[in-house]
């Protein structure tokens, strides 16, 4: 059994199901990407795993424990952290305050944890007293990821961490995600930049109209002709 598993995930908004019978698994120290065309239900699947989606069924298992009944905040307490795609920082708070808020549930030494984040993301250390709303897109994204890491999670879920940033910044963010993986965290991310995401991923899932259509290792998905043509742009 993998560390974090979602089984037979079905759900949506209102009456219509957006995702149907999806299965995802991710182990500690592994990066897993969920890819697929627009509207495939990638973000919805993540919301279901977090318990934000009201109408969903299926089973979520964290470290051999079923957490399906837990509310979002309790799931976060049990070690899952999430970086939303948009509005993922407190724009009116400073970098330091953003990290402190991320550590709201953290029992250890907050300052020590903040220093760890600053070693992981050196650029935001210089900006620690600046209001995050004034930072560049790439820096904001780093603050967002650092905020999510403050709770010292075992599972990190990222919803399109590279949306709207330049290719250079994208590489930088992926590099950071690889560093996070080294800390034995299970990383699950939804990505639009499929090819680049698969290059750093151990495994990937391709969602089409709410169903798991393909899954496999990063290399396999990158090298399969059919998948390349259909989803990775040739």
């Amino acid at each position, binding site marked *: 059994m993998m560390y974090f598993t979602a089984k037979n995930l079905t759900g949506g908004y209102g009456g219509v199901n957006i995702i149907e019978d999806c299965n995802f698994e991710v182990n500690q120290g592994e990066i897993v990407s969920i890819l697929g065309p627009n509207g495939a239900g990638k973000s919805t699947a993540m919301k279901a795993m977090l318990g934000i989606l009201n109408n969903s069924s299926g089973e979520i298992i964290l470290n051999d424990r079923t957490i399906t009944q837990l509310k979002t905040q309790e799931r976060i307490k049990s070690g899952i952290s999430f970086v939303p795609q948009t509005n993922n920082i407190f724009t*009116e708070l400073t970098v330091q305050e953003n990290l402190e808020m991320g550590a709201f549930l953290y029992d250890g030494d907050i300052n020590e944890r903040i220093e760890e984040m600053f070693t992981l993301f050196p650029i935001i250390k210089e900006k620690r007293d600046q209001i995050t709303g004034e930072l560049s897109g790439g820096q904001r994204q780093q603050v967002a990821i650092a905020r999510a890491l403050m709770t010292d999670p075992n599972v990190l879920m990222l919803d399109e961490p590279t949306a709207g940033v330049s290719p250079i910044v994208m590489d930088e963010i992926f590099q950071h995600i690889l560093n996070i993986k080294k800390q034995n965290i299970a990383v699950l991310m939804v990505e639009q930049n499929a090819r680049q995401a698969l290059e750093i991923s151990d495994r990937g899932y391709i969602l089409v109209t709410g169903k798991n259509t393909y899954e496999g290792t990063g290399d396999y998905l990158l090298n399969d002709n059919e998948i390349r043509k259909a989803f990775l742009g040739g």
Partner: protein
Amino acid sequence: MDIINSIVLLCNFLVIPALTYGSQLALGAIGVTLIYGVLRFANFAYGDLMAFGTMTVILVTWYLKSLGINLGVLPTALIALPFGIIATILISLLFDKTVFKYYRDKKSDPVILIVVSLGVMFILNALVRIIIGPGDVVFMDGARFIMKAREFKDLTGLDEGLALKSTQLITFITTIITASLLFYFLNKTKTGKSMRAYSNNEDLALLSGIDPNKIIILTWVLVSILATVAGTLYGLDKSFKPLAYWNNLLPIFAATIVGGIGNPLGAFYGGFVIAFTEIGLTYAYKKFFVYLLPERLEPSSLIQYISTDYKFAISFAILVVVLIYRPNGIFKGKVI
């Protein structure tokens, strides 16, 4: 000498009253802005919450006086203040639990909550008038003046007197202390920061593990403290009249919006902006110019820009101008 006289004159009739009035508005506006920032609606019941708080302070003051307890030169109301605050917190939480929570859980539009707050306003207003009556209540005791105009004249030998009422000084000092404590709380403590975080990004606050219910209770507690303190200071300075607090709602909202709604520091300054504009525009400058200008240039009219009857129109005009040209407020705030 004439220059000093003219400055003293302005201090006496413009600066000191505006600082006092501005302090009262500032505390009120911070309360309105906190409710808007955290609970996301404009609370029209705020003026009557101030009236309710002040009323409880008055009732406790009367009781204390009947027991023979007083503060000497300071007004007895200062001892009664904590009791008034507790009563106001309780009634705020009661209304939140019975009224506002229902609409919050339903995720109603802010405009619906505004109408709901109007209903709460009528209930509170009626409650206050039933309990204490609609008339004027003077509950100021202790020393009335720190410096009388005549004493100042004797002391300095100037023609103009500078009077300083004890309520004016108490108002100003209490406001500075209350506001400083509040800003310390919001900017330096973990709970205060989490309140700002919740106000800034509710969803992310939830994802960070901040408990919304605690934040909401805390907001009502802070708002009740501010409303009671501001209301009591206003009542001590002028007199207590239930309808006066309802009337103050307009300048308070104007101050909130000038400062950028949702921004407590902006609301603090906004209170003073409104007070200085209101008093500055309704003050008759004739005597001031008589001191400064040579005799042949002396003004014949009062040089009063706007009659005091229209003082509320000034708040309203500022409100409209700010909403048209700077909807974010002079300081940065949320767009309504």
